[in-house]
């Protein structure tokens, strides 16, 4: 099977992100592979282990995108492609969907394109569905369980009401949620291999598309309002007394 995982580099989840000079900054917090994308890479590797084939990881971005690609290579992906182009400055998630679609088409013969459910920086979560629509492939989003049966996939999708069990023919787009399986840690050998890997860079003209126009206009960035609360500590002589006092306070706020 020819498997692809699309990955992105983001600030770590512990990063204290704030706005400075109209830009989002995160100080010296590390850049990492988007945590959701680790599940995409893991799912691709598991499918390869069960059915044979190759796993190619793709990222769109500047030099920082290599961080996600190298992590995926260290986890065990076979090869990586970086799509980088000066014309990419300021692209939005929808443009990324167009670019990834073109790259998947250029690779050719791809059976499954895996995505994380969303990137933890932009939080849009629209790229998998948009790429599927552009490719004309079934969108198997928010997947927690994957079974391959010949040329079809049977998946369980996490929805508000529980799980929806869906079957589709390959090729397909699959986006993963967390309970699809914990991503493996890169092995020592994997990290060595990844550090030496030569990652080819494709420009937009190499994947055969013009720079997609940004459809979203960014007006401004603002820091999330600071929560101004003073914590009132509830005390008492015993748990019952504390509980009585706390219940009275909570109900007194008239929020229930």
């Amino acid at each position, binding site marked *: 099977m020819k498997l692809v995982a699309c990955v992105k580099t983001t600030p770590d989840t512990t990063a204290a992100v704030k706005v400075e000079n109209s830009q989002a900054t995160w100080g010296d917090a590390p850049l990492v592979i988007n945590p959701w994308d680790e599940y995409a890479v893991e799912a691709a590797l598991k499918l390869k282990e069960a059915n044979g084939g190759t796993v190619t990881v793709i990222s769109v971005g500047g030099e920082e995108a290599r961080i996600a690609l190298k992590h995926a290579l260290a986890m065990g992906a076979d090869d990586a492609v970086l799509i980088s182009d000066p014309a990419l400055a300021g692209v939005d998630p929808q443009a990324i969907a167009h670019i990834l679609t073109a790259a998947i088409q250029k690779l050719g013969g791809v059976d499954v394109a895996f995505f994380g459910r969303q990137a933890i920086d932009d939080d849009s979560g629209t790229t998998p569905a948009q790429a599927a629509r552009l490719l004309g492939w079934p969108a198997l989003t928010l997947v927690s369980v994957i079974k391959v049966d010949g040329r079809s996939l049977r998946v369980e999708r996490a929805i508000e009401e*529980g799980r929806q069990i869906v079957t589709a023919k390959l090729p397909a787009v699959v986006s993963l949620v*967390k309970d699809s399986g914990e991503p493996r840690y890169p092995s020592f050998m994997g990290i060595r291999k990844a550090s030496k890997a030569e990652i080819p860079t494709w420009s937009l003209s190499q994947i055969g598309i013009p720079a997609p126009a940004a459809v979203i206009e960014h007006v401004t960035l603002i820091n999330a309002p600071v929560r101004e609360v003073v914590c009132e*500590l509830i005390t008492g002589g015993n748990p019952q007394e504390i509980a009585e006092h706390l219940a009275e306070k909570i109900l007194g706020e008239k929020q229930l």
Partner: protein
Amino acid sequence: MNTLVYIDNFKGEALPASWEAVGVGKTLGKVTGLIFGSGLEALAKTAFEYGVDEILLADDVSLADYRAEVYATTLKQVCGDQGCDVLLFPSTSRGRELAAMAAIDLNTGVLVDAVALEANGDKLTVTRPIYSGKVLEKVTCALKPQIITLRGRAFPKPAPQPGKTGPVKKVAAGSGALTTVDGYTTSEGGVSLTDANIIVSGGRGMAENPTLQPPADLDAKQAEIWRAQQGFAKLKEMADVLGGAVGASRAAVDAGYVPYAMQVGQTGKLVSPNVYIACGISGAIQHLAGMRSSKMIVAINKDAEAPIFKLARYGVVGDLHQIIPALTVAFKKRLGK
């Protein structure tokens, strides 16, 4: 403005965020509700009561199960025939996906997860959280239709007007199915986390109850999980009294205490209840990212230095395993249950 609002339903039951979207649509003018599925007469009736002015109804057995491609094609046909300036969706799993596909199909953009909306003439500006709500961005889209998904519980739910009704126009179901739906496994009932008015959430501290005696045949790890699950059962009792839902921190999920579906935080569910009671949760930045928009936070933790207290309106420094059962009793008494 010609505003269409997608009313997300599962087996004829609307998700509450759909009504919030109708409420937002009404602030822009007349609202046309889009309802897709099968056997939807009752839902159409309810939609009018929540303020929808007219309904475009695709009621067909081929739409009985949500399938992205068929629903997206139905939507594309409807928008093409009807013409529309604004297309609103609730930010549910289906709403987000359809909005994303509609942006492709209709050659426009999509603004996801709005928590505020401003209209300047015909142009809408959306405020949306990014970096898990650590930062907010304001965005617009110059193309038409303007497609926006609205985060659940960020906008008020309109009060229903019993007996209000309006015209229903039937529209055809789309084609282009690429999947078949084999069935569902539904989660055990109760209030869903994202819709809940009140959430009682447990963390690592749920296992720290030495007074419980686990069955003798459990090893240390199993005994820890067993202890935590007894604790979570107590949280459920309290949530039931309050009509709320039970959540958990990532630490509790990763330790195997409760399933991932209960996880609140950056890599779990984003919730914004009126009251969030954090029990034995220290308040890691990733957890705060998932619940910081709660109206009121209450923290119960034995560690007075836990960061969660910085966000809390009320706090108890103490043993949650003693406080929780007593608190449940106190709520029962006060609520007359």
